[in-house]
């Protein structure tokens, strides 16, 4: 169990969250604006907005903040892989619950890899709406020295 410390200490089996929040129009529009997705479904009227499937990646930071109050740790993370499956639309105003679990931590070529699986559930319906697997490389600097 490595929760309660820093992100770089997270280990296989650690559970992050769950954390609940309500999806706001500001979040959808602001995120989409930052990545130049100017489609009406992301930057239009409130009733037209849906959650970009990529926004789940920021729920990872929500879970980190909740589970790792010590912050990032000694080294920056390098995001290596994004893998999402969206089962149904997530709309502004939906109450959501996100939960994560570290499903693997391993070394390859002198670098530490951490795999986080996250599930986003609609609180009102209890339905799984998004499943996301995130793979990061930790300790990029020490890996470079080791190489």
């Amino acid at each position, binding site marked *: 169990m490595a929760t309660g410390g820093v992100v770089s200490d997270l280990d296989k089996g650690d559970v992050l969250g769950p954390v609940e929040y309500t999806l*706001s129009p500001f979040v959808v529009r*602001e995120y989409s604006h930052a990545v*130049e997705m100017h489609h009406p479904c992301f930057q239009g009227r409130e009733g037209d907005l849906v959650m970009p*499937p*990529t926004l789940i990646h920021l729920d990872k*930071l929500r879970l980190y903040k909740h589970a790792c109050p010590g912050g990032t740790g000694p080294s*920056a993370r390098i995001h290596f892989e994004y893998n999402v499956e*969206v089962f149904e639309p997530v709309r502004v105003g939906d109450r959501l619950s996100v939960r994560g679990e570290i499903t693997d931590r391993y070394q390859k070529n002198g670098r530490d890899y951490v795999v986080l699986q996250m599930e986003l559930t609609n609180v009102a319906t209890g339905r799984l709406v998004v499943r996301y697997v995130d793979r990061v490389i930790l300790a990029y600097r020490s890996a470079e020295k080791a190489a």
Partner: protein
Amino acid sequence: MHAEKLEPGSEFSLPPRPMTRERMRWYVDAQPTIAADDGRIHTQEPTIHDDDEYARKQGLPGIIADGMISTNWILGLLIDVYGPDVAGRCKLRTKYVAPIYEDQIVVTRARVTAVEPSGEGKACRLDVWCEDDAGTKLTTGEATVFV
């Protein structure tokens, strides 16, 4: 829907974009801004995406783009081609196979690889990727959209 969107071998792309310092910073600033969700801009500590000195301390030659920018550009292309329903049901996997440095030209592409029956509609499978102006792949992946 135009037949070519469901024709294996069909390719789609976005116009080339330089990965400017500003584009990298927009994503950095979006993260604390979205976390706060109060309608105001927030900033965060230096990152490898917006601070050269910090990036060099982490073993990098300078700032690099957050991988989620290229993933979002791929998602934007899929929505351009297949419409907003992609945001409500899809699969998307991306890997960041090479760093994207400041002012590097990025071309976002997708190619239909297969179309199969799925429920009452079809599942369209695609290879998706971002490449530089020499054709070197920077981000690779696969997507499935349901039409």
